[in-house]
């Protein structure tokens, strides 16, 4: 599998480390409750099909990426910077 890193271009997947589902959002702050944190830490859909995943370009630019791919075919639809995605979410949500 090859992943087009937005900073480095298309690279072999062995340069990357996968973390998993990119959809859960961490409930930050002192008022985060155990229920919300449980939802963030444990349940995963493990989809057979389109999935959004965190990948880390550890042997490259050290950027965390959100990779949209099909887990059945490994076809990659879109790759964006996870930081950019998080910043837009912060701005959108704030």
């Amino acid at each position, binding site marked *: 599998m090859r992943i087009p890193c937005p900073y480095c271009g298309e690279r072999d997947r062995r340069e990357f480390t996968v973390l998993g589902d990119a959809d859960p959002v961490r409930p930050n702050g002192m008022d*985060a*409750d*155990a229920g919300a944190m449980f939802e*963030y830490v444990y349940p995963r859909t493990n989809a057979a099909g389109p999935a959004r995943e965190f990948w*880390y370009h550890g042997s490259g630019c050290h950027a965390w990426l959100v990779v949209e791919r099909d887990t059945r075919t490994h*076809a990659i639809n879109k790759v964006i910077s996870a*930081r950019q995605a*998080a*910043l837009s979410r912060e701005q959108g949500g704030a």
Partner: protein
Amino acid sequence: MSYRLPSGGRIDRSRSLQFKFDGRSYRGFQGDTLASALLANGVQLVGRSFKYHRPRGILSAGSEEPNALVELRSGARREPNTRATTVELYDGLEAASQNRWPSLRFDLLSLTAPLSPFMGAGFYYKTFMWPAAFWEKLYEPLIRRAAGLGCAAGLPDPDHYEKAFLYSDVLVIGAGPAGLAAALAAGRSGARVVLCDESFEFGGRLLSERREIDGAPADAWLAAVKAELASMPEVRLMPRTTVFGVYDGGTYGALERVADHLPEPPPHQPRQRYWQIIAKRAVLASGAIERPIVFGGNDRPGVMLAGAVRTYINRFGVVPGRQCVVVTTGDDGWRTAYDLQSAGANVAIVDARKSVGPALLAKADKAGIRVLLGAQAKAVHGRMLVAGLDVVLESGATEYLPCDLVAMSNGWNPAIHLTTHLGGKPAWDAARFAFLPPQALPPGLSVVGAASGEYGLARGLEQGGAAGASAAQDCGFDAVPLPQMRAEDDGRDASPVWMPVTSKKAFVDFQNDVTASDVQLAHREGFCAVEHLKRYTTLGMATDQGKTSNVAGHAMMAALCGVDIARAGTTVFRPPYTPVAIGALAGHHRGKDFRPYRLTPSHDFAREQGAVFVETGLWLRAQYFPQAGDRDWLDAVVREVNAVRSSVGVCDVSTLGKIDIQGADAAEFLNRVYINGWTNLAVGKARYGLMLREDGFVMDDGTTARLGETHFVMTTTTANAVRVMQHLEFCHQVLWPSLDVRMVSVTEQWAQYSIAGPRARDVLRGVVDPQYDLSNEAFPYLASGAVTVGGGIAARLFRISFSGELAYELAVPASYGNAAIRAIMEAGKPYGIRPYGTEALGVMRIEKGHVAGNELNGQTTARDLGLGKMMSGKKDYIGRVMAARPALLDTSRPRFVGFRPVNTADRLRAGSHFVSAGKPATAENDEGFMTSVAYSPTLQHWVGLGLLRNGPERVGEVIRCVDPLRGEAMDVEVCSPVFVDPKEERLRV
């Protein structure tokens, strides 16, 4: 007796080569394969079959060969199961037949042949059932001896192998006419083209046939195309290279046989090179593989594929027989008959079809070839070599045809293997009687020529040229299809016959000895699904992956079940297309180079001191420094610990992870990743920090120093350095992207040394430049800051201690590491300084009750480790919420305490388990386990750390410590984990 034609073929008759087969000397020519050279010398019998030890000859002329498997070379270079049909002949080649004893002609195990009616499909499963205990001791060794192929050398491979990456626009797989046309069309556009072919000569079937292109012999076209391709700077020609697998993202695995055609690889050359080719587009032109016909004795030496016979005649100038019968179910076999006749052999044609085209008949008539239509081969006569063939005529009568060669053709299977590697299902084409590439091809791949089921030469050239141009266009090049070429289209379609007309052994899968009756048995016993058929009979499970057998087996089963083969389905192919040596996949990653290893900047110093090294992660760290007269490693460790506790020692701690963290929000960032607070840490101070995973369990620990208002340097454990860096990046980039903080790993930029012991300050005084005040008042415990050493070299000093002694860690730029440790040793000479290794480091941390990797095992919480009071209640941090789950607050969880043996002569064992006094040592009474133990030179007995239910509340209790693996048990007293200097009087002086 030579079977070589006086002229013709693509061999170089001026270069005669000597070779040996089973100890006998023969001669062949440059350009021969081992198989063609053996056939030229009249050697048909080359091996024994896998299960029945039947004599076997050469079936094919390519990589699909299931019979002619030999041991190539000798000694450490011996390679078993090498296909004689793909081995390029070289001077001095040595090969031997395999799976026979004592000799190929007289094989004792072939005496099992009379038993073979009892050795059908499922034989092993049914026969060797009882008693079960006999399987491992008796049956399996017997079967392994009897069945099987060649023997591996059993010696280390003296050659080396390489891995390499290759990037291209267009990869063309197969250099037959369609592949050459594709490469040419793509190459002319300037695209980066890679053209691979498994053979040592480009041309594919053109080498095997006598064809014309644009009115001239195809040879002329071939030579012109090869010359043009060779002249193109962006085209890379890779003969002897098999593309064996298709992977995601346009990645193709290929094996280049760099030196297999030579006795030994030339100096500095690998034997083979494993390529990972990344191509934007690929054109598959892998051709087709001919199908055998299933008749009695179709495996006897002298029965060959008809297309292979043409290859031997036209490419190698060898006629494998003098009296030949061509058994065919389509027009293609007739071409073999014509070529045999032209080469001087006597030929008869047996065609299962009742009528054929008039042109075929006219040509046969003109050549004087006897034709039997509506006739089928029944059974071969002869054992070591074909002597004749029984043919069932259209009338139903049987006629015996004496012959020494049977050439068979049952149509062709497109070589679609690579098209199914990503999961595509082959599509049955009833008109062609063949499986074609799936509708859903691997992305970027197109299939042309015979591989796509288009057998005609003109059609293949046209398709190849168009696909090559289109692939190059997709990569942004201005490509045009090749001008149309004129060539005769050779119909290769057949009306295949699947069922044998005999009860004699008729083989479907030659390599695994699967017969028609095995398929029939599988059907009777209900193993009708192709996947069941495969596993029950082992059809297609040999190293040839059923290239010549699968379709016949599946068609036979479909017929028995009365269903269409399209419904019966087929198994899909997986990489590799042909076997790949493990050595090639490993490349240079063997022995001590299996993984890379990392050396610290002062590795040479440690080596000079005679250090014994231990692998920690990828690092090699000094474990201890033995000296002459030591009884064992413990003597060295005791000496090193005593040096530190009584005077001073130095330890290389460069392997600790070091992360430089800067930014206005750096302190806030640390607040969020560590459980303890950081905002109040003064510049010039260091603090111990503990971080959790989000699920509330401990992840890592270390010391972090504040070098400036917005500048911190964090240390991590050696083992977790990479993981922590990744975690911090995640926290910053994903969780809190607005924080103004940046970080970088500086592990390799700084060499770091721990100088520990009562005389540590005195030693340091001789290393750090004099303007720095190192007094306890000016640089107290947990002070940190920039200093210079050696007259102005920038360094960092941290007063932190793992040993519990007065201790400093001095960091210098990595390039000064080797000099720094020598300077420290020099300065420490008056105090008897000793270098100490990771063992002494570990002993002293256990004596001090510091947690390390054994305790940070992924199952412990901060509270378990007695570090709960570090957990800040004033801020959010990773793992805070989950760590507060009720079950994790339960004080009856195994928690961190120390242990001392009641009998001080007892040796404690890490991994031993605790049970309360008086309770039996059973799993339900298990109360925890010992995580770390050490012999304490300071206390002069063993001490241990461990996790015990309600541990801290049980200090003073005597419990049992059991080690069922070693059969040991002893009484231990629960105690504080801090064995040495609990009041920290030695630390702060």
